[in-house]
């Protein structure tokens, strides 16, 4: 994705909580198989039960969808989903999966992914915050914006669980 300023945006990070699968599926459906960008997704999910979220989201995506392992390289043309009970963040073009402190009651949480995208990809990052996750993701979006990336938040009125704290400036 190149905007009018010819800025390459090749890192999309998406975060969602309750009711977010539908919105995520709607975005994934629209991504072409030829997309040369990385997509990272955090969905608030049970730390206990294996939900096969990557397989579920894979049904809606022309791009391959999977859960990375700690240290895996971050590749373009791939959708990465945070596994249950670990935070997923970007470090030096590799994924870091770690069982850190819960952020906004959640692990995985959206902020660690968004903040690491801001730090490691800067203006190349696009953060998309969907469907009410409480406060999780707000600081991350602000960090992406501060790094000259692009921050997008779903309108609360469109969300199935509209509880995101706004505004973003």
């Amino acid at each position, binding site marked *: 994705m190149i905007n009018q300023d010819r800025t390459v945006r090749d890192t999309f990070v998406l975060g969602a909580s309750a009711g977010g699968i539908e919105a995520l599926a709607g975005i994934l459906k629209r991504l072409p198989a030829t997309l040369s960008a990385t997509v990272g997704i955090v969905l608030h999910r049970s730390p206990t039960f294996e939900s096969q979220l990557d397989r579920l989201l894979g049904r809606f995506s022309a791009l391959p969808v999977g859960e990375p392992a700690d240290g895996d390289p971050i590749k373009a043309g791939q959708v990465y989903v945070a596994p249950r009970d670990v935070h997923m963040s970007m470090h030096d073009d590799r994924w870091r999966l770690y069982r850190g402190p*819960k952020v906004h*009651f959640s692990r995985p949480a959206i902020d660690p992914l968004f903040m690491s995208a801001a730090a490691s990809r800067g203006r190349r990052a696009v953060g998309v915050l969907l469907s009410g996750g409480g406060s999780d993701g707000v600081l991350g979006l602000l960090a992406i914006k501060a790094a000259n990336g692009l921050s997008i938040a779903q309108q609360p009125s469109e969300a199935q669980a509209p509880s995101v*704290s706004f505004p973003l400036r």
Partner: protein
Amino acid sequence: MNGLPEQFPTDGRAAFTGLVCPDCSGNLVVSVRSDHVSFHCRVGHAYGIAELVLAKEGALESAVWRAVFAFEELAVLLADLDRHGLVHWCGPDNCRARSELAQEQANRLRAIIEADRLLAERSPGNGEIRMGPA
């Protein structure tokens, strides 16, 4: 006892609060970025305003349940000691009276929990809480 600082920090800096983290009891600091108030502790637990209130209410209920358990455990311990004839050292009547009082206190605490009403139950709409003018 102070909860929040008199002055909120600006430009993303953090200020100590008089509050502790609901998850680990570490000191909480508060910071404000673009109207968004957030709290975090040294190890990295993080909360928005509403999340912190919810967590504190949850911690309060847990604390009272622990007190209920302590009273009920004491009541049953004293009752069983009496049943086994092991209360010569304090007198059977004293033991029974203490056991009954402990059970009454437990019942009072159960009633307190039942009568308590969480902030979320009182909040209209989606519970959004913001700094500054609406």
